[in-house]
């Protein structure tokens, strides 16, 4: 009956989580294991590989460059996307479809295709402006558009942007105030989420950097991998953990903020206390 059905479901869930958990954790654990191997078959575990990261100047430089790129991309994405999305909601609601389509285009146009088209442009940039690795940020903002748009869209849809801004304007607020002090605080979770997805993407990006001949984190890891696998894998694990921890923090911070903002009420979807299937 219902009790046995519930039991079967729990068993199924347990099995699924164990199997999938193993599948996803084992390679990460393997990386960790690999990066802490001592010399020789039965040598003890060592953090030598991790500690020697700083002795590779190229690697350190690449890490710093990637972090800078992440920051610039996140900022650039916000600067470009947020005002545009708010403006569209307030003044040009008919354009939302178009903006949505454009923002989802990078999912459709493969990165490698974009690179083929950007190649001549980057050549021109390098010759006439700057060949700094930070010019990659221009492309990275495009790459993060789909994820950032979805996140910001979810956040903006949850609040009534029109009413809030009209209320603020009627009280005498100028546009910067409306955006910075009325709207932004109410979509903080979505904002952080968008920024973090951007950071995760930039830290993990390889294709653009490699083919445009820049030395970012992933490219450095790849190059070093041929010479000293342990160190490069240590860096790889670190960047993965970093991104994951950031996302968890945001998720928890978002949950807490959500709880303090919602007024207790009945959500019709959860009225029936029955089981979800």
């Amino acid at each position, binding site marked *: *009956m*219902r*009790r046995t059905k519930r039991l079967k479901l729990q068993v199924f869930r347990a099995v699924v989580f164990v199997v999938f958990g193993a599948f996803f954790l084992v390679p990460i654990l393997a990386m960790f294991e690999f990066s802490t191997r001592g010399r020789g078959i039965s040598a003890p575990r060592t953090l030598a590989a991790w500690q020697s990261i700083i002795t590779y100047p190229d690697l350190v430089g690449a890490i710093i460059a990637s972090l800078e790129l992440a920051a610039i991309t996140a900022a650039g994405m916000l600067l470009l996307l947020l005002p545009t999305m708010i403006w569209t909601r307030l003044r040009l609601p008919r354009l939302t479809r178009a903006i949505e389509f454009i923002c989802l285009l990078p999912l459709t146009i493969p990165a490698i295709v974009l690179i083929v088209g950007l190649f001549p442009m980057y050549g021109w940039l390098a010759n006439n402006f700057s060949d700094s690795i930070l010019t990659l940020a221009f492309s990275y903002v495009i790459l993060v558009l789909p994820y950032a748009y979805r996140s910001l869209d979810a956040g903006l849809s949850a609040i009534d942007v029109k009413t809030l801004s009209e209320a603020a304007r009627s009280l005498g607020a100028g546009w910067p105030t409306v955006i910075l002090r009325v709207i932004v605080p109410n979509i903080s979770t979505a904002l952080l989420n968008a920024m973090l997805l951007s950071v995760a993407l930039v830290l993990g990006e390889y294709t653009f950097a490699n083919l445009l001949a820049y030395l970012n984190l992933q490219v450095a890891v790849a190059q070093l991998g041929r010479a000293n696998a342990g160190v490069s894998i240590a860096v790889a694990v670190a960047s993965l953990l970093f991104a994951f921890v950031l996302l968890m923090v945001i998720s928890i911070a978002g949950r807490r903020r959500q709880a303090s903002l919602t007024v207790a009420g*009945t959500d*019709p*979807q959860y*009225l*029936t*206390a*029955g089981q979800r299937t």
Partner: protein
Amino acid sequence: MHSASSSGTAARSGVEVRLEELRRRYSGVTALDGLSLTLAPGELVALLGPSGCGKTTALRLVAGLEEANGGRVVIGGEDVTNVPANKREIGMVFQAYSLFPHMTAIQNVAFGMQLHKVGASERRQRAGKMLELVGLSGHANKFAHQMSGGQQQRVALARALAIEPKVLLLDEPLSALDARVRARLRDEIRRVQLEVGTTTLFVTHDQEEALAIADRVGVMNAGRLEQLGPPTSIYSRPATAFVAEFVGLTNRLPGVVKGGEVDVRGTRLPLVKPDTSDGPAIALVRPEAVSLVVDGEIVPGPLVGTVIATAFLGATSRVTVDMGDGTVLAQMPTSEAGALTAGTRVRLALRKDPVLIARDEKATTEA
């Protein structure tokens, strides 16, 4: 065709439904504490109460969507406590979202019959007739998102009845609808229920709904049934303070119990329970039992107050009077409320109906 009337003289089909000492607990909370209730064949019983009182739990136990921790459910003489929901021959209407979005109205209605292996042409025919019964013949090929909330609920009703269930279960079917649609639809539901004659359990938190359409109303609180009876009894002879305050409006007037009566501001009123112990108490007085006198000399006294506001409710009006140490509500036909503008000094007269008293400081239900 039956000659249906709300007093219930129509021919009844339908089976008896018995709930015996039903108990239900989840994670430490007791949702139902030994509920017993018998529904006569063809009867419509409304379970009324605030959220969390256990009424929905009771319904879901009858439906079989949840398992009881104790007690039995007997439908038509058969103990179905251990029978799964899909074998109990029930019909259920949910509060919202229960229509399958990928099926048209008529496909929704026919779905139950499809599960019962009824042939395709017969299905279509009967589904069509059910839609006609609820007044939606022209909407057969519409999808849920193309219909209003009220229409969706009527389709849900048709779907539940199409399989000719032994008992019809309605879980707050009107709560998600607009006020105007609600009133019309509840009469529709009653009309259909009388026509088909199915025993029906109707759960709601809206006392007006319950009183308007049920044969009997069961008022529930904290997992227990406080009173079960026809709507008139529930309203005019509430058995407990909770019922008195939950159903209809009540004035809470401080007073003192002495010798089987309660003294409220100088007026002695009889008690529903004459053996109540002496001492301070709160008398529960209906607004209709309070009349206001404007003519003659208004000498200051315990029964004198000033009108704050008059709410025009159509045939009746409700007047709020400031007594200095609290407010009192009086309700009367609008024709008598003409002179009662704000600021008028009035004297209260309390009708000598037996009253219930409460002893706690707080109201048993929130405003």
